[in-house]
């Protein structure tokens, strides 16, 4: 078992930062991401002895992470662990580049996706996986992966569009109520 454990950690070391980053981006924040990562590793350690080909370790672990994430999201409401706010905002108040705003927009777009689509977008757009790698991960032809990526991106764009419309309406109603231009309202 210890031998097995050592081998597990050896195999993980080469792509551990990427896998950890994937979990954080998939979960939407660092705390939930780290929790998902550790939970997935724990699960993977127990299942590791059943893995036949060590070359398949990386896609195997990613598949496991995606499954764990999907199970968390699909848990019945009474078991779901709710995060208040967006977890620990990395950067906190010191956010000169508007990272927090950017992350908020990203999260809004990702929320429109199913867990599988979310994993696909994170891996392709944020972790620069190729279509071929994604095809191997999911065991689907590249054409299918491309179509799924395109659909997921369209969903995200529509979600952002809806949010833009909502924001425009909110700004208009504020101007109507206070007679103030948008910039002044925003300053308040």
């Amino acid at each position, binding site marked *: 078992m210890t031998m097995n454990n050592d081998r597990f950690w050896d195999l993980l070391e080469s792509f*551990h930062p990427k896998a950890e*980053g994937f979990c*954080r981006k998939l979960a939407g924040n660092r705390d939930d991401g780290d929790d998902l990562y550790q939970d997935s590793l724990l699960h993977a350690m127990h299942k590791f002895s059943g893995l036949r080909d060590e070359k398949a370790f990386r896609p195997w672990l990613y598949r496991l992470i995606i499954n764990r994430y999907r199970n968390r999201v699909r848990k019945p409401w009474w078991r779901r662990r709710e995060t208040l706010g967006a977890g620990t905002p990395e950067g906190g108040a010191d956010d000169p580049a508007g990272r927090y705003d*950017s992350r908020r927009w*990203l999260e809004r777009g990702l929320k429109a996706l199913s867990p599988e689509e979310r994993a696909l977008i994170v891996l392709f757009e*944020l972790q620069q996986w190729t279509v071929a790698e994604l095809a191997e991960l999911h065991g689907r032809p590249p054409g299918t992966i491309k179509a799924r990526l395109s659909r997921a991106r*369209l969903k995200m764009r529509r979600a*952002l569009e809806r949010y833009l*419309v909502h924001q425009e309406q909110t700004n208009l109603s504020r101007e109507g109520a206070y007679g103030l231009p948008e910039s002044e309202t925003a300053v308040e």
Partner: protein
Amino acid sequence: MDCRKAKQRLSKADWSADRELAEHLRVCPTCARTAEAEKMLETVLQAASDETYPATPPAILRSEVLARAAAQPRKENIVRQILAQLRVRPRLFAGLGLAVIAFLFATLVPFSYTITAGYETMIHGVDEEHAITSEHLAEALSVLNYENVSVSVSRSGPEYDYHITGLPSRDAAREAGAVFSSLTGFDGIPECVPVYEMVSGSLYAQVVEKATRIEIDTEGKTDEQISNEIRARLLAQGYSRADVSVTTDPGGERRIDVQVGREAGDKETEEVLELKLRNTSDISFDVHPDDSIEKLEIDTEGKTDEQIAAEIEAKLAAQGKPGAHVTVTTGPDGKKNIEVTINKEEIR
């Protein structure tokens, strides 16, 4: 350029350099919003992909995961959990197994048992003077709504034996005997016996079959009225002896004691008694006289005076007043005049 074409071009990677598209976006607010969303999406995805955070050092991660593994017992699948519990608590599982077997045994395995299918009344040794035809007796019983009864008469020497079958309860059997006495004036004691039937069913069905259920509304009733009602219901359900005592303590709580028994001739069976009382409010009361005549309700529609008189006599006989003599006459105005004479000695 139309909106459809514009949206197609917006999906391409290098749409920002498209002049024709830029012109359309200037005049079409919907497509402009789509373009804005697309630009925003591109920006946030780029920003997020550029973001890098320090990864947890592998050694720390490993110790954290192992600590988590030690703190969190490994989640087994349901079968393994049950097997593990079985090893830890063999007696609990043996008990549960027995309970399941007992449940299945009680609900599924059929047994033969006897039920009381009805009652019959036998009147022996009726002499020629008091004999009536079986049709006459059946007609009198049909007045009391016992329409499915069958009456047979057999002769043994100078005397007749009457056999009335198909009576639903012991009370009905007694009533049938009283009707015969009322019609003929015969003073012999009718014999009421239950008719048993062998049926097959589970233990559960057997218990349900034998349960005696009595439901009584206690609204505005005294303890005595309630006990009388319970007793009457028990007797109607075939109990030969029903000692009921209802008492109310100063706190308003009612206590009901019931002791029941069957006649010696009856087959001894286990009895389950269920009493259900509704509206248990407490109200002052009057004593109900024991020898009063209960209210008689008779439908006179389409009946002759003689038929009405016979029905009243039969009902009085059923109340234990077999010597009643009833005369019904109809006046010129259509009003009925009913005279009832009861011989008190016969009541005793």
